[in-house]
């Protein structure tokens, strides 16, 4: 199976053949993968070099000229470094664009904190109008990418190296119900799904699967919460812990509820190593998740 990033390159290359409005803007990262496509579409595969402010600024200009820009690099250099360009050169100009990131929060642990962006989704939450996709499988990534390039809106597609064993259907924008139970709701986001399913295997919980986290599927969460007098919700996200806690609170604002937001901690680990080691250190491996979710959902006393 290819990685989500490889799938992005092959999918975007095909989309460039099909849609003359599409332009892919790169800042060196993944430019090798687009080499052949760039020869075919020299005006629409644009590599600006290691210049991330220009990457997003040029994307805004392309959109102003009537194109649909797809801007791509590592998450830290796509959202965090040129954040003002994301805010002003796209949103404030009233134009759209598709940001496609790689690297996520822990994809290259040996690369250290400079190449980790656990805060990317939380940062985009400070802006209006962003759709945020967090696919958990290359097939899902392809579907979401194809959907993203069709519109004129602001879309962030967060690709990651880890993925779930099997792809789930990406039908609408909402959460997918994978299991129904009565002792709480667990929302698994993208690549967190397999670990969540393993952790909650024998728990009486509803498991929702989210590949699109913004807009947040209020209706699905309210439906899953079921009982009007009490709701316990756990959200497991592959980025900054608690990123979607406010969204869940808003969805349940007329229901007494508790929300546990699990994800990446703010504190730097200052460790290298492997992805599995980082997930364990963040308490996101199946054993840790089982203990943390179980403790939260267990009736008090």
């Amino acid at each position, binding site marked *: 199976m290819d990685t989500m990033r490889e799938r992005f390159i092959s999918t975007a290359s095909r989309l460039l053949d099909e849609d003359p409005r599409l332009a892919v803007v790169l800042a060196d990262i993944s430019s090798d993968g687009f080499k052949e496509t760039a020869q075919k579409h020299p005006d629409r595969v644009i590599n*600006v070099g290691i210049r991330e*402010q220009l990457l997003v*600024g040029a994307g805004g*200009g*392309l959109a*102003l000229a*009537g*194109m649909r820009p797809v801007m791509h690099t590592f998450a830290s250099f796509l959202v965090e470094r040129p954040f003002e360009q994301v805010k002003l050169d796209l949103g*404030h100009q009233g134009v759209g664009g598709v940001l496609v990131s790689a690297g996520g929060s822990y994809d290259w642990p040996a690369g250290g904190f400079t190449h980790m962006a656990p805060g990317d989704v939380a940062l985009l939450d400070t802006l209006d109008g962003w759709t945020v996709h967090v696919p958990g499988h290359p097939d899902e990534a392809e579907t979401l990418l194809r959907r993203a390039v069709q519109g004129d809106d602001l879309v962030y597609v967060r690709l990651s190296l880890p993925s779930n064993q099997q792809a789930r259907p990406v039908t609408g924008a909402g959460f997918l119900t994978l299991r129904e139970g009565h002792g709480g709701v667990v929302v698994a986001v993208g690549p967190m799904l397999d670990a969540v399913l393993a952790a909650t295997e024998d728990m009486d919980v509803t498991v929702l699967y989210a590949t699109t986290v913004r807009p947040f599927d209020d209706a699905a969460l309210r439906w899953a919460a079921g009982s009007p007098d009490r709701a316990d919700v756990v959200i497991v996200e592959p980025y900054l812990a608690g990123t979607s806690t406010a969204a869940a609170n808003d969805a349940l604002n007329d229901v007494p509820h508790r929300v546990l937001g699990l994800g990446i901690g703010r504190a730097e680990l200052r460790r290298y190593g492997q992805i599995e080691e980082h997930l364990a250190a963040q308490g996101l491996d199946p054993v840790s998740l089982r203990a943390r979710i179980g403790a939260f959902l267990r009736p008090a006393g």
Partner: protein
Amino acid sequence: MTKDLYRLMALMTGDEKHGPAATSTLDAIWVLYDRVLRVTPKTVDAPGRDRFLLSKGHGPMAYYAVLAAKGFIDEALLPGFGAYDSPLGHHPDRLLVPGAEIGSGSLGHGLPIGVGTALGLRAQGLTDARVWVLIGDAEMDEGSVHEAIAYAGPAGLEQLHTVVIDNASARYGHAGGIAARFEAGGWSVRTVDGRDHDALYEAYTAPHPGRPHVVVARVEPKNA
């Protein structure tokens, strides 16, 4: 004409006399709209129009005055400059001002956007349309400007043009000169008196095959 532009500016500032800072961009913008840009109030949405991007959005009175003089905006809007219900802010917003190609204010955004606009026009075969970006010499302190300069030359963005209003306001100047920065980046370069309309016109319309073009328009130093 300049006299009428001063009258229009006075509608915003309430002051008939304008210092060099307020009018530093006036002649450069006027000559562009009067003699160079192929855009009118009727063609503000035409895909093949020329585009003027005011990157240095601070002190936009001269810009608004030219837009009013050319009929893009109603002169009656000018006295409301900066008011809550006015479309004319102290930094322009493209969603509010007819004819304004970008919203600006934060420095260093216009030239990268201009690069993308030129790329987008080229990719659509609209190779006759020209993009003009106005920046200030102090704006060149922003690193994003240099990202755009360094890329546009090698990319051969012939449709991209920049006018740098040089009123010597950059805190530490630009050692080696502003024009040299562009020249090293592979741009076609002219430096002219930013008050001389004929010199501006000649510099604006100089041929520059295969290369982006910059006109450095020198005006009175801001802190002289």
